[in-house]
Protein backbone atom coordinates (compact mmCIF):
# COMPACT_ATOMS: atom_id res chain seq x y z
CA UNK A 1 0.00 0.00 0.00
CA UNK A 2 1.42 3.34 -0.96
CA UNK A 3 1.32 6.52 1.01
CA UNK A 4 -1.56 8.08 -0.88
CA UNK A 5 -3.63 4.96 -0.60
CA UNK A 6 -3.20 4.79 3.17
CA UNK A 7 -4.20 8.41 3.57
CA UNK A 8 -7.12 8.11 1.23
CA UNK A 9 -8.29 4.95 2.91
CA UNK A 10 -8.17 6.56 6.34
CA UNK A 11 -9.91 9.72 5.19
CA UNK A 12 -12.75 7.88 3.59
CA UNK A 13 -13.23 5.21 6.18
CA UNK A 14 -13.31 7.61 9.13
CA UNK A 15 -15.03 10.57 7.50
CA UNK A 16 -17.24 11.02 10.55
CA UNK A 17 -14.51 10.81 13.14
CA UNK A 18 -11.84 13.01 11.60
CA UNK A 19 -11.98 16.60 12.73
CA UNK A 20 -8.83 17.90 11.17
CA UNK A 21 -6.28 16.59 8.74
CA UNK A 22 -2.80 18.04 8.44
CA UNK A 23 -0.40 16.68 5.83
CA UNK A 24 2.78 18.20 7.18
CA UNK A 25 5.50 16.58 5.14
CA UNK A 26 6.07 13.40 3.11
CA UNK A 27 6.90 11.55 6.28
CA UNK A 28 4.54 13.14 8.80
CA UNK A 29 0.75 13.27 8.92
CA UNK A 30 -1.28 14.62 11.83
CA UNK A 31 -4.92 13.58 12.08
CA UNK A 32 -7.19 14.99 14.71
CA UNK A 33 -10.03 12.68 15.63
CA UNK A 34 -12.88 12.61 18.10
CA UNK A 35 -11.85 11.15 21.44
CA UNK A 36 -14.62 8.54 21.33
CA UNK A 37 -13.26 7.09 18.12
CA UNK A 38 -9.76 6.40 19.28
CA UNK A 39 -10.32 2.69 19.84
CA UNK A 40 -11.88 2.23 16.43
CA UNK A 41 -9.26 4.15 14.50
CA UNK A 42 -6.23 2.74 16.22
CA UNK A 43 -7.62 -0.75 15.95
CA UNK A 44 -7.87 -0.30 12.21
CA UNK A 45 -4.44 1.23 11.90
CA UNK A 46 -2.73 -1.37 14.05
CA UNK A 47 -4.51 -4.48 12.89
CA UNK A 48 -5.59 -3.89 9.32
CA UNK A 49 -2.85 -1.55 8.19
CA UNK A 50 -0.35 -3.30 10.51
CA UNK A 51 1.41 -0.20 11.62
CA UNK A 52 3.65 -0.18 14.65
CA UNK A 53 2.59 1.74 17.70
CA UNK A 54 5.33 4.14 18.54
CA UNK A 55 4.18 5.91 21.62
CA UNK A 56 1.57 8.28 22.89
CA UNK A 57 2.42 11.70 24.17
CA UNK A 58 0.29 14.02 26.19
CA UNK A 59 0.40 17.79 26.05
CA UNK A 60 -1.33 20.18 28.37
CA UNK A 61 -2.26 23.25 26.36
CA UNK A 62 -4.11 25.96 28.07
CA UNK A 63 -7.53 24.83 26.96
CA UNK A 64 -7.28 21.16 26.34
CA UNK A 65 -5.18 18.20 27.19
CA UNK A 66 -4.04 16.68 23.95
CA UNK A 67 -2.91 13.17 23.48
CA UNK A 68 -1.04 12.17 20.37
CA UNK A 69 -0.84 8.56 19.38
CA UNK A 70 2.07 8.02 17.04
CA UNK A 71 1.94 5.14 14.58
CA UNK A 72 4.63 4.34 12.11
CA UNK A 73 4.21 2.65 8.73
CA UNK A 74 7.65 1.30 8.30
CA UNK A 75 7.39 0.05 4.74
CA UNK A 76 6.45 3.45 3.40
CA UNK A 77 8.28 5.50 6.02
CA UNK A 78 5.22 7.39 7.16
CA UNK A 79 4.46 8.54 10.67
CA UNK A 80 0.82 9.16 11.45
CA UNK A 81 -0.02 10.96 14.66
CA UNK A 82 -3.60 10.68 15.88
CA UNK A 83 -4.46 13.68 17.91
CA UNK A 84 -7.29 13.76 20.42
CA UNK A 85 -8.22 16.81 22.42
CA UNK A 86 -9.75 16.17 25.80
CA UNK A 87 -11.86 18.65 27.67
CA UNK A 88 -10.16 19.68 30.91
CA UNK A 89 -13.35 19.02 32.81
CA UNK A 90 -13.61 15.45 31.68
CA UNK A 91 -10.19 13.90 31.29
CA UNK A 92 -11.20 10.45 30.14
CA UNK A 93 -10.42 8.29 27.19
CA UNK A 94 -10.60 4.63 26.27
CA UNK A 95 -7.57 2.55 26.99
CA UNK A 96 -5.84 0.94 24.03
CA UNK A 97 -4.77 -2.17 25.91
CA UNK A 98 -7.43 -4.37 24.28
CA UNK A 99 -5.68 -3.76 20.97
CA UNK A 100 -2.02 -3.95 21.95
CA UNK A 101 -0.10 -4.52 25.17
CA UNK A 102 2.35 -1.83 24.24
CA UNK A 103 -0.01 0.87 25.44
CA UNK A 104 0.11 -0.34 29.02
CA UNK A 105 2.98 1.62 30.44
CA UNK A 106 2.54 4.80 28.49
CA UNK A 107 -1.05 5.07 29.68
CA UNK A 108 0.07 4.58 33.24
CA UNK A 109 2.63 7.31 32.70
CA UNK A 110 0.19 9.77 31.17
CA UNK A 111 -2.25 8.96 33.93
CA UNK A 112 0.12 10.05 36.65
CA UNK A 113 1.90 12.88 34.89
CA UNK A 114 -1.16 14.50 33.33
CA UNK A 115 -4.01 13.01 35.29
CA UNK A 116 -5.96 11.44 32.47
CA UNK A 117 -8.19 8.53 33.28
CA UNK A 118 -7.93 5.62 30.90
CA UNK A 119 -11.15 3.67 30.86
CA UNK A 120 -10.58 -0.06 30.83
CA UNK A 121 -6.95 -0.04 31.87
CA UNK A 122 -6.37 -3.05 34.13
CA UNK A 123 -4.03 -1.41 36.60
CA UNK A 124 -3.35 2.27 36.72
CA UNK A 125 -0.71 2.08 39.42
CA UNK A 126 2.13 4.52 39.85
CA UNK A 127 4.86 4.09 37.33
CA UNK A 128 7.36 6.88 37.69
CA UNK A 129 6.49 9.06 40.64
CA UNK A 130 7.58 8.15 44.13
CA UNK A 131 5.43 6.54 46.76
CA UNK A 132 5.12 9.71 48.80
CA UNK A 133 4.00 11.86 45.88
CA UNK A 134 0.62 13.38 46.80
CA UNK A 135 -2.48 12.31 44.91
CA UNK A 136 -3.98 14.73 42.45
CA UNK A 137 -0.81 16.62 41.64
CA UNK A 138 0.37 16.09 38.09
CA UNK A 139 3.77 17.53 37.26
CA UNK A 140 3.27 17.98 33.54
CA UNK A 141 0.20 20.13 33.90
CA UNK A 142 0.54 23.82 33.10
CA UNK A 143 -0.59 24.87 36.52
CA UNK A 144 1.90 22.67 38.39
CA UNK A 145 3.51 24.43 41.30
CA UNK A 146 6.11 23.29 43.78
CA UNK A 147 4.21 21.59 46.58
CA UNK A 148 7.02 20.30 48.72
CA UNK A 149 8.02 22.92 51.25
CA UNK A 150 11.12 21.01 52.23
CA UNK A 151 12.56 21.08 48.76
CA UNK A 152 15.80 23.02 48.42
CA UNK A 153 16.22 24.78 45.11
CA UNK A 154 19.62 26.37 45.37
CA UNK A 155 23.17 25.17 45.23
CA UNK A 156 23.40 25.25 48.99
CA UNK A 157 26.96 26.49 48.93
Amino acid at each position, binding site marked *: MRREEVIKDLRERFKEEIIDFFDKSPKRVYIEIKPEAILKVSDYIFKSLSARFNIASGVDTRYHVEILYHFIFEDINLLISLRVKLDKKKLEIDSLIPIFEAANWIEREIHELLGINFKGHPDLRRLL*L*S*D*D*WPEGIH*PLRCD*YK*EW*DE*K*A*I*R*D*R*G*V
Partner: protein
Amino acid sequence: MSMKLKALLKSPWVFHLSTGSCNNCDIEILDCLTPRFDIERFGMLLAGSIKHADVLLITGSCNRQSVIRLKRLYEQAPKPCLVVAIGECSLSRGLFMHSYNCPVPLDKIIPVDVYIPGCPPKPEAIIAGVVKLIEKVKKEKVESKK
Protein backbone atom coordinates in the same frame (compact mmCIF):
# COMPACT_ATOMS: atom_id res chain seq x y z
CA MET B 1 46.75 4.57 63.76
CA SER B 2 45.27 1.26 64.73
CA MET B 3 45.74 -1.90 62.70
CA LYS B 4 42.09 -2.14 61.86
CA LEU B 5 41.88 1.35 60.44
CA LYS B 6 45.01 0.76 58.44
CA ALA B 7 43.44 -2.36 57.08
CA LEU B 8 40.27 -0.47 56.27
CA LEU B 9 42.25 1.94 54.16
CA LYS B 10 43.97 -0.89 52.38
CA SER B 11 40.85 -2.79 51.53
CA PRO B 12 37.94 -0.46 51.05
CA TRP B 13 35.06 -2.41 49.59
CA VAL B 14 32.79 -0.13 47.71
CA PHE B 15 29.06 -0.35 47.30
CA HIS B 16 27.53 1.53 44.50
CA LEU B 17 24.24 3.31 44.86
CA SER B 18 22.52 5.10 42.06
CA THR B 19 19.88 7.56 43.15
CA GLY B 20 18.55 8.65 39.81
CA SER B 21 21.52 9.17 37.59
CA CYS B 22 22.10 9.05 33.89
CA ASN B 23 24.08 5.84 34.18
CA ASN B 24 27.35 7.33 33.07
CA CYS B 25 28.88 7.62 36.50
CA ASP B 26 27.71 4.11 37.29
CA ILE B 27 29.37 2.77 34.21
CA GLU B 28 32.54 4.64 34.94
CA ILE B 29 32.53 3.06 38.39
CA LEU B 30 32.22 -0.36 36.79
CA ASP B 31 34.96 0.71 34.43
CA CYS B 32 37.25 1.11 37.40
CA LEU B 33 37.14 -2.63 37.89
CA THR B 34 38.21 -3.41 34.39
CA PRO B 35 41.72 -4.12 33.13
CA ARG B 36 42.78 -0.61 32.32
CA PHE B 37 42.08 0.79 35.77
CA ASP B 38 41.82 -2.31 37.98
CA ILE B 39 41.03 -0.95 41.41
CA GLU B 40 41.62 -4.39 42.87
CA ARG B 41 45.26 -3.31 42.91
CA PHE B 42 44.36 -1.16 45.87
CA GLY B 43 42.33 -3.90 47.47
CA MET B 44 39.05 -2.34 46.42
CA LEU B 45 36.23 -4.67 45.54
CA LEU B 46 32.70 -3.98 44.41
CA ALA B 47 30.50 -5.40 47.14
CA GLY B 48 27.09 -6.80 46.30
CA SER B 49 25.46 -6.28 49.65
CA ILE B 50 25.56 -3.05 51.57
CA LYS B 51 26.42 -4.97 54.71
CA HIS B 52 29.82 -5.71 53.25
CA ALA B 53 30.51 -2.15 52.22
CA ASP B 54 33.08 0.26 53.60
CA VAL B 55 32.61 3.02 51.10
CA LEU B 56 29.34 4.06 49.52
CA LEU B 57 29.75 5.51 46.07
CA ILE B 58 26.66 7.53 45.45
CA THR B 59 25.73 8.81 42.04
CA GLY B 60 22.69 10.58 40.76
CA SER B 61 20.38 13.36 41.70
CA CYS B 62 18.55 11.85 44.68
CA ASN B 63 15.04 11.60 43.40
CA ARG B 64 12.09 11.26 45.70
CA GLN B 65 11.78 7.50 45.46
CA SER B 66 15.47 7.01 46.16
CA VAL B 67 15.77 9.43 49.03
CA ILE B 68 13.59 7.32 51.29
CA ARG B 69 15.59 4.23 50.51
CA LEU B 70 18.91 6.00 50.68
CA LYS B 71 18.36 6.99 54.29
CA ARG B 72 17.45 3.44 55.24
CA LEU B 73 20.39 2.03 53.36
CA TYR B 74 22.78 4.33 55.13
CA GLU B 75 21.40 3.00 58.40
CA GLN B 76 22.02 -0.53 57.21
CA ALA B 77 25.65 0.04 56.32
CA PRO B 78 28.14 -1.09 58.95
CA LYS B 79 30.12 1.74 60.47
CA PRO B 80 32.75 3.04 59.94
CA CYS B 81 31.28 3.73 56.57
CA LEU B 82 32.46 6.49 54.28
CA VAL B 83 30.38 8.21 51.65
CA VAL B 84 31.66 9.44 48.33
CA ALA B 85 29.47 11.54 46.08
CA ILE B 86 30.29 10.93 42.47
CA GLY B 87 29.35 13.18 39.62
CA GLU B 88 27.74 16.55 39.39
CA CYS B 89 24.25 15.20 40.10
CA SER B 90 25.08 13.91 43.52
CA LEU B 91 27.13 16.99 44.34
CA SER B 92 24.44 19.55 43.77
CA ARG B 93 21.94 17.82 41.52
CA GLY B 94 23.48 19.72 38.62
CA LEU B 95 21.00 20.08 35.82
CA PHE B 96 18.26 18.57 37.82
CA MET B 97 18.16 21.08 40.60
CA HIS B 98 14.81 22.37 39.49
CA SER B 99 13.28 19.08 38.70
CA TYR B 100 10.10 18.36 40.59
CA ASN B 101 11.39 14.95 41.52
CA CYS B 102 14.74 15.91 42.99
CA PRO B 103 13.96 17.83 46.17
CA VAL B 104 17.20 17.86 48.19
CA PRO B 105 20.89 17.48 47.48
CA LEU B 106 22.74 14.44 48.74
CA ASP B 107 24.67 16.07 51.58
CA LYS B 108 21.43 17.22 53.15
CA ILE B 109 20.38 13.58 53.42
CA ILE B 110 23.48 11.80 54.64
CA PRO B 111 26.94 13.05 55.55
CA VAL B 112 29.32 13.02 52.60
CA ASP B 113 33.07 12.66 53.00
CA VAL B 114 34.41 13.29 49.55
CA TYR B 115 32.96 14.91 46.44
CA ILE B 116 34.14 13.89 43.01
CA PRO B 117 32.91 16.35 40.38
CA GLY B 118 32.54 15.65 36.72
CA CYS B 119 29.83 14.63 34.36
CA PRO B 120 30.81 11.87 34.43
CA PRO B 121 34.10 11.88 36.30
CA LYS B 122 36.70 9.81 34.57
CA PRO B 123 37.67 6.53 36.22
CA GLU B 124 41.00 8.12 37.08
CA ALA B 125 39.13 10.82 38.91
CA ILE B 126 37.10 8.28 40.83
CA ILE B 127 40.20 6.42 41.89
CA ALA B 128 41.89 9.66 42.82
CA GLY B 129 38.82 10.61 44.82
CA VAL B 130 38.91 7.41 46.79
CA VAL B 131 42.63 7.91 47.40
CA LYS B 132 41.83 11.38 48.70
CA LEU B 133 39.27 9.87 50.96
CA ILE B 134 41.90 7.63 52.42
CA GLU B 135 44.22 10.56 52.95
CA LYS B 136 41.45 12.48 54.61
CA VAL B 137 40.70 9.68 57.03
CA LYS B 138 44.38 9.38 57.86
CA LYS B 139 44.66 13.06 58.52
CA GLU B 140 41.59 13.12 60.70
CA LYS B 141 43.01 10.32 62.77
CA VAL B 142 46.31 12.12 63.20
CA GLU B 143 44.56 15.32 64.17
CA SER B 144 42.31 13.64 66.64
CA LYS B 145 45.36 12.17 68.29
CA LYS B 146 46.87 15.60 68.72
